């Protein structure tokens, strides 16, 4: 069935609404999961089990005073958080979040509209997502440079190093699955895994490398050097307050979800029906699992030093990724 403009617009709105809400809910989940892993209770006071904490946080973010430092470059300072949030959501536009569905005809106005699984079904989806996430580095970078703050500029420098280095790892690690599937389209990845074993089992090295690179690109804890409190106060976000800081936050969580979706679609079988599970439920469970994995890793590991970060990327992960690509190539040829 052909995707209409209306269907694509609906899909875009669904992605925006759901992912923003889930990004908010993700903060609650993160605090709860971390708390349970560290034998605490986490947020408990606002609402049952602290469920209304998200609302309280939202009110706090919206009503906080918006401060722009005196010597800061006001325009770029205001633009940077928007770049982070925008690139995160643009990356999601090429990711198949749910299977195709048609809106039931009993709903007025929109009934019968076909909503595609991917908002922008370009046949190089995976590269587009990685490229857009790479462009996301301008958010922290410009924020750090515009705010006339030493901590900010150190954070910006770390952003540039970390994102540039780990882009190489994610790109190279995902190259081997691309070679096996023979396509750059995420929909093709999905249909490949409906007939073959999950790429997670046939490409375990690439899977682990992609997860590590993904953690680094989303600034998750073993690699959260961009805004590590003990060293650089808050890094690039030092001078930000209120909703501007909130936009960085939403962008970061949206990126986490993008990485989770990519992992689920590329390595874990996508939105195919699984045993008794329907496809839409299967992919939600997979995304949730990868998201949980990020929190789990955060609770388990201390963060690395900057020099260890570079050592890990260039001396360990990148050679392994290259060797993996070469071996995969030889196996495919033979």
């Amino acid at each position: 069935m052909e995707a209409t403009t209306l269907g694509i617009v609906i899909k875009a709105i669904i992605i925006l609404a759901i992912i923003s809400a889930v990004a908010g809910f993700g903060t609650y989940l993160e605090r709860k999961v971390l708390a349970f892993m560290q034998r605490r209770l986490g947020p408990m006071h606002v609402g049952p089990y602290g469920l209304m904490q998200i609302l309280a946080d939202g009110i706090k973010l919206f009503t906080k005073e918006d401060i722009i430092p005196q010597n800061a470059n006001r325009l770029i300072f205001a633009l940077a958080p928007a770049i982070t949030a925008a690139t995160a959501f643009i990356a999601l536009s090429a990711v198949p979040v749910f299977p195709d569905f048609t809106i039931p005809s009993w709903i007025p106005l929109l009934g019968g509209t076909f909503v595609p699984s991917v908002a922008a079904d370009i046949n190089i989806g995976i590269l587009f997502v990685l490229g857009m996430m790479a462009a996301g580095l301008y958010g922290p970078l410009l924020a750090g440079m515009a705010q006339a703050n030493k901590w900010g500029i150190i954070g910006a420098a770390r952003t540039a190093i970390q994102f540039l280095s780990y882009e190489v790892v994610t790109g190279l690690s995902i190259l081997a699955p691309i070679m096996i599937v023979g396509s750059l389209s995420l929909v093709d990845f999905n249909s490949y895994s409906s007939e073959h074993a999950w790429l997670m089992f046939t490409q375990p090295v690439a899977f682990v490398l992609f997860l590590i690179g993904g953690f680094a690109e989303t600034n998750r804890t073993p690699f959260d050097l961009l805004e590590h409190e003990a060293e650089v106060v808050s890094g690039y976000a030092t001078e930000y307050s209120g909703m501007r800081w909130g936009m960085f936050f939403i962008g970061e969580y949206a990126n986490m979800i993008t990485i989770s979706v990519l992992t689920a679609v590329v390595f874990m079988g996508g939105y195919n029906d699984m045993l008794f599970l329907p496809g839409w439920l299967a992919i939600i469970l997979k995304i949730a699992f990868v998201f949980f994995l990020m929190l789990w890793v955060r609770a388990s590991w201390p963060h690395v030093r900057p020099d260890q970060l570079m050592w890990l990327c260039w001396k360990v992960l990148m050679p392994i990724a290259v060797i993996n690509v070469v071996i995969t190539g030889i196996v495919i040829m033979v």
Partner: protein
Amino acid sequence: MYEQIAFYLFSVLTVILFLITVMSKNVLYAMTSLASGMVLISGFFFILGADFLGVVQLIVYVGAVMALYSFAMMFFDATREVKEKNTNSALVFILGGMSALVLVLMFAAPIFSEKIQALYPMHPEAGNAQDVGIVLFTKYLIPFEVAAVMLLVAMIAGIILAGKKMDQSFTQDMSVDEEILTQKDVK
């Protein structure tokens, strides 16, 4: 119809952004506008149906090249305005004249465009990446390999230039700090 709207929107924005890049005296404005101009140029590739090249433009220029530029920009005070020294006005004159000539040629190009033929037309059934790959590994194999060797040379040169004392760790080895301190004393 959508394509035309998108084209005019992108072209106007690109020209404005690159003008800001050239005219602005603020490092930060120049850098931001150059990066966003690069993003918009990838939009042109998407309009032309060359998805793969569009994404490559995005990854290479926005993700890598511009990020390296901005990394160099960190050595400047980004909030201050740069005073440009303009010593050679003849050079400015020649460069300006040449860009005007190029502009005239570009606007005259549609007159000849009917005679232009695509030597390697796209195959919609094969997809973009395959088309680029086939051309790259048959017709343009030698330039491709030469470019690869050039990049290798650049990489080795970079490693040699930056590689002094790479066997020492700056965070653990205190003798490096002492050396830096003594160098300061000498100055």
